Each structure stands twice: as C-alpha cells, then as structure tokens.
C-alpha cells in the first residue's frame, strides 16, 4: 500500500509530467491525444474518450483510446448528438461558466447510448467562450488489475480535476495560439487585400487627377473659346489645350471646307509639310474617313481612326499619329485631329481616347458657331449696305420729290406770272414808259458819276470865266509875227488825223506831264493859241485855263477852232 505521502508525490509527478508534456504542444488534437494518454494511466482507466467541440456549430473532434476502431469511428460520427446531450449551454448565447468542471453521473446523462458502456466517469468542462470539452473514462482497473474496479476515490478525483485544469489551460493556450495564427493569417490576407485596394485606389486617384486636369483644361478652353470667333483661332486654342491636357508632344487639327475650297490648319510640335494646301488636306481627310468607322458623311459626328500610324501613312503628316479622330460638320465641311506620342511615351488609355473624342465633339460646336457667326456677320454687312443704299435712295427720292414740288410751285408761279404779265402787257401804259425812262436816266446818272471819264453835269467852261479868243486871221498873224505857239487841246487821235501845221498836242488829261516835258522851257511871254473842242467837251477852254494858271501871259482860244483855220486856207497837216 502506498502511503499517503507517496500518493501525493505520485500525483504531483503526474501533474508535472502532464504539464511538461502539454507545455510544448500547440495543436488542440495533439493536446487531447497526449492528455488522454497521460490521464488514463494514473487514473487507471482502461478506455477513454475526449471530446472538444464548439456547441454553437456542432463541430469539433472526438478522440478515443482503448476502443475498437469501428466503435471509435462511430463515436466520431455522433459528435452532434454528443453536443446536444452534453453541452446544453449553446442556447445561452455563449455564456459558458468559465473553467467549470461538471461531473456527470452516467445515469444522469440524457442519452446513455451515445458513449460506450463502462465509461462511468464523465466530466464536462468549458475551455473558453465557444469551446466545451467532455472527458469520459472507464472502466477503472481494480486494485488487483482485473478491471471493473468501481468508482474513483477522492485522490484520483482530485488528480483528475487537476489534470483537467491542465488540459483546459493547454487547450486555451493552443486555441489562443490558433486564434492568433488565424487572426494573423486573416490580417495578412486583409493586409494583402488592403494593399491591392490601395494600389487600385491610387491608380483610380491618378486617373481621377488626370481627368480633373483634363476637365479643368477643357473648362478653361470653354472660357477661352467664348471670346474667339474665327475658326483658325478656335483650332489653335483647342489644339494647345488638348496637347497640354493629354501631355502630348505634337498634334494637328484641320478643317476642310470643300465648298469654299479652303483649309484651316493648326499644327504644334512639328513643321508644316504642306497640309495647309487644299489637295494634301483633302487626301488626309479622305484617308481618315476610310479608316474610321463612318460609312457616310453624317453631320456632327466624330469617329475614331483605327491604327492611325498605318491608315494615315503617306499623307504628309510631319509626325507619327498615335490617336486620330475624323469629324464631320456637314456634307461640305470635314476635319481631322491627329495626336502624336505622349511626353511619357505611354499610350493613351481608352478613357483618354473617349475624352478626346468628346472634346472633338465640343470643338465641332465651336467651329460651327464661328462659321454661323461669320455667315450672320456677312449677312448683316449685306443688310447694312442694302439698308444704307435704301436710305440713300429714299433720301434722294425725298429730295427729288421736294425738288419736284419746288419746281412745280415755281412753274406755277412762273405760269401765273407770265399769265399776269401777258394780261398786263395788253394794258401797256405811258406810265410804264415814264418809269422805264426815269430808271434809265437814273442808271445813266449813277454810271456817269462813278466813271472817271464821266461828263460833268454842268460843263466846266460854263463855270469858268470865258477865255480870251482870237480869230483865225489874228492867230495866223501872231504865229508869223510874234512866234505864237499853236496848242491842239484835242485827244491825240484827233491830233494825229489833222492839225494846224506846227501845232503841239497838249490835252487836259496829260497836261501835267506834257507841260513839264514840252512847255516848261517856253517863255511865259510867248503867245499861246489853243484850239480844239466840240459841243460837250471844251478841251481848248480847259487847257487855256491851265496855261493861264501857269502864269503864261497871253493865252488865246481860237474862235471856231480848226474849222475856221482851215476855212481861211491856212496850212494844216498832215
């Protein structure tokens, strides 16, 4: 018989060894197997069954020792029933009593036929909130080793409870490790998924940034296009914006007007190789049309050109086209957009191509608007010129109408005047004659006053004292005896026609100058005989007066002038 001390020492050794055995094991199945093998010996059980289950899911493991294989396999199949029979806690929302070991008497078990016969030691225990365990042992070896030895004594029961606590601790640790590993694996998987999601998110962010940049550029383009009204300016602005928005090195866009036979071309990043010419532009547009999906020239359509590097080869493009669009405004106006490589060398994504296609559609709107504006402006100019011409015509008509009215009124007045004068001419009176005569006299009087050669109203000789006269005979005697000088006072024309031989011409008009040149040296005592005059002009009297005023002592006027001289037969000339 073992002493009490030895029994305790043996129990402690069993516990120590069991603890050592279980301490390095992390798999619950291995723990259960080791525990079952370790516990059966000290307890003295011939067969044992250990169950670890999750009652909530009716799953777990059933391990046995000492049972025939068929019975052990059948026992594993009855795990759900075992859970229903021995783990009634599963309906309590997992509120398991922690670490509590419950000893169940075999006759208290709900389903006695679930476990093999002879296994009278049943202990239920909780591992954690979700796992429960069942340990069934028996029959026990008798003291003499023949079996069916009866019930556990107190020491064995204590040992069994201690072993169960070790088992529960080991299982908890293993389950925790398993949970941690599972959590680690789950975390790793989630981390991988998060990494993938992050990469996807970053790619999407880059795409969104690019889209935002493109849309911002297009928005700026829209604001800029609002102030551009010519097709060339629109093409230049559009191409610049598209190249910047899609980071493209070079590109070109042209609009071909077959009706006006004109080309509008915008080209950036490459030299013009003649595409501004109509023929080259026509070939390019035609090839782009063939390579696009368009089968007819539908107005306001945009089609992507398939494989533009091949389709547009030989068209004179100064660069290799990577992306191209064919667009049509109407039957007569089509265009092509060709973009070269991107700055990064990467190909444009399908979303980029769709965006380019959408923007070409917007470009068509701008170009169409500019063309319509040009048409409207031309029509307005035409209307303005027509309006001005109409206004001018209306003004001319108005003036003509006024002139006609004026002429009609004047004609009416003239007719009425002529009619009145006609009537009046029949009533011509002496009063009219008198008026005309008086008017003529008045005009003549005024003219005579204004004229330097006018005739004085009162003859000058009537106002002067009469000069001393001499007859022709006496004059002849004075000429011959006293050397009298004969003065012809008539104008030179009369003097040149006929004059007294030896006479000197001295007219009143030239008196001052001729006197100084001709008579200044004549002695004042020399007799001077003056002739020349008619009814209205007495030049002889005037000259005689002037000579007298110059203090000549004997100034005589020839009576009856030249006629009396000639009548006497005295000499004359020429």
């Amino acid at each position, binding site marked *: 018989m073992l002493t009490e001390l030895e029994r305790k020492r043996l129990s402690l050794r069993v516990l120590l060894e069991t603890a050592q055995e279980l301490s390095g094991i992390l798999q619950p199945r291995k723990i259960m197997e080791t525990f079952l093998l370790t516990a059966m010996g000290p307890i003295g059980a011939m067969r044992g069954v250990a169950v670890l289950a999750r009652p909530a899911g009716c799953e777990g493991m059933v391990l046995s020792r000492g049972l025939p294989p068929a019975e052990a396999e059948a026992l594993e199949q009855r795990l759900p029933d075992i859970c229903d029979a021995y783990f009634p806690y599963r309906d309590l929302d997992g509120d398991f009593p922690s670490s509590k070991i419950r000893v169940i008497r075999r006759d208290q078990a709900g389903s006695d036929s679930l476990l093999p016969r002879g296994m009278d030691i049943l202990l239920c225990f909780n591992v954690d909130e979700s796992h429960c365990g069942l340990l069934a042992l028996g029959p026990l070896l008798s003291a003499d080793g023949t079996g069916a030895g009866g019930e556990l004594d107190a020491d064995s029961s204590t040992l069994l409870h201690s072993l169960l606590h070790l088992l529960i601790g080991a299982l908890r640790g293993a389950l925790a490790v398993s949970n941690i590993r599972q959590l680690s694996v789950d975390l790793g998987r989630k981390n991988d998924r998060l990494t993938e999601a992050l990469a996807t998110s970053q790619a999407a962010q880059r795409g969104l940034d690019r889209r935002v940049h493109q849309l911002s550029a297009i928005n700026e383009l829209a604001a800029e296009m609002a102030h551009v009204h010519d097709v060339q300016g629109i093409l230049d602005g559009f191409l610049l914006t598209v190249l910047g928005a899609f980071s493209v090195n070079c590109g070109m866009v042209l609009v071909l007007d077959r009706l006006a036979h004109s080309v509008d071309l915008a080209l950036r990043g490459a030299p013009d190789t003649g595409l501004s010419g109509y023929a080259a532009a026509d070939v390019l547009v035609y090839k782009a049309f063939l390579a696009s999906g368009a089968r007819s020239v539908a107005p306001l359509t945009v089609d992507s050109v398939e494989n533009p590097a091949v389709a547009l080869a030989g068209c004179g493009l100064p660069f290799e086209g990577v992306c191209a669009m064919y667009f049509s405004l109407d039957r007569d106006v089509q265009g092509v957009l060709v973009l070269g490589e991107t700055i990064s060398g990467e190909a444009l994504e399908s979303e980029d191509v769709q965006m380019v296609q959408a923007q070409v559609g917007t470009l068509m709107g701008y170009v169409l608007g500019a063309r319509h504006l040009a048409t409207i402006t031309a029509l307005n100019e035409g209307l303005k010129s027509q309006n001005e011409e109409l206004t001018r015509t209306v003004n001319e008509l108005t003036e003509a109408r006024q002139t006609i009215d004026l002429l009609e009124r004047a004609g009416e007045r003239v007719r009425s005047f002529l009619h009145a004068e006609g009537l009046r001419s029949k009533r011509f009176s002496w009063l009219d004659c008198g008026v005309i005569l008086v008017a003529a006299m008045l005009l003549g009087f005024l003219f005579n006053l204004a004229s*330097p*050669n006018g005739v004085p109203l009162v003859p000058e000789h009537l106002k002067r004292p009469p000069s001393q006269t001499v007859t022709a005979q006496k004059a002849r005697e004075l000429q011959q005896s006293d050397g009298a000088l004969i003065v*012809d006072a008539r104008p*030179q024309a009369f*003097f040149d026609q006929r004059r007294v031989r030896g006479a*000197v*011409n*001295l*007219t*009143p*008009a*030239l*008196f*001052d*100058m*001729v006197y*100084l*040149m*001709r008579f*200044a*040296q004549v002695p004042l005592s020399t007799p001077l005989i003056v002739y020349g005059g008619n009814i209205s002009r007495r030049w002889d009297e005037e000259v005689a007066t002037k000579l007298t005023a110059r203090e000549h002592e004997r100034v005589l006027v020839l009576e009856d002038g030249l006629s009396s001289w000639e009548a006497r037969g005295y000499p004359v000339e020429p």
Partner: protein
Amino acid sequence: MRRMLLGALASGLLLLGACRGPVEDIVGDYESERVDLSPAKLTLRSDGGGALTVGAEEAPFRWEVREEGRIVLHTRQGGVISALRRPGLLELDMPGSGKQIFRKAGK
C-alpha cells in the same frame, strides 16, 4: 465751279510770282537824256506809284506793267502814256513831245 476758281487763283498767283521779278527790276529812278531841259527825273515806286519831276515841279501818276516790255502810266486826270522798257532805260511815247528817253539811275 470751285475747281475753276481755284485754278484761276493758282494761275493768278503763279503769274504774280512770275511778274514779281521784272517789277522789282523796273522800280527805281530814271533820268532824262535831254540836255535842253532842267534835270528831269522819272520815279517808279514798288507800290505802283510814281512821279515825273522837272526842276521843282512834280507830276504824280500810277503805273503798271501790261505785256512784255510795256509799261503804262496813268495820270490823275485820266490820261494814259505808254512806255517801252529796254535794258537800263524807258522810252516814253509822249503825245505832243515825241519819244522821251529816260535812263535808269546808277546804271
């Protein structure tokens, strides 16, 4: 009408400019070559006035250039005397006293 007036004005100005040279050449004092006469001087001023001075007496007149080489003197009484201009002298056709030669002073 306006063009004709402007043309006539321009022609008149040109003619005036063309005549300005000869008129300034004519202006000056001329002396008679007659020796039987007191010193006789004919003065032509640039303002169109002039005077014949014989001794202490003076006969004023106005003068103008008619055609090439001809000068007309107008007396105050309305008489007209024609003169022919030659280099350095004037030849006056004076009724009653024949042609009178006046040489330009200082020549």
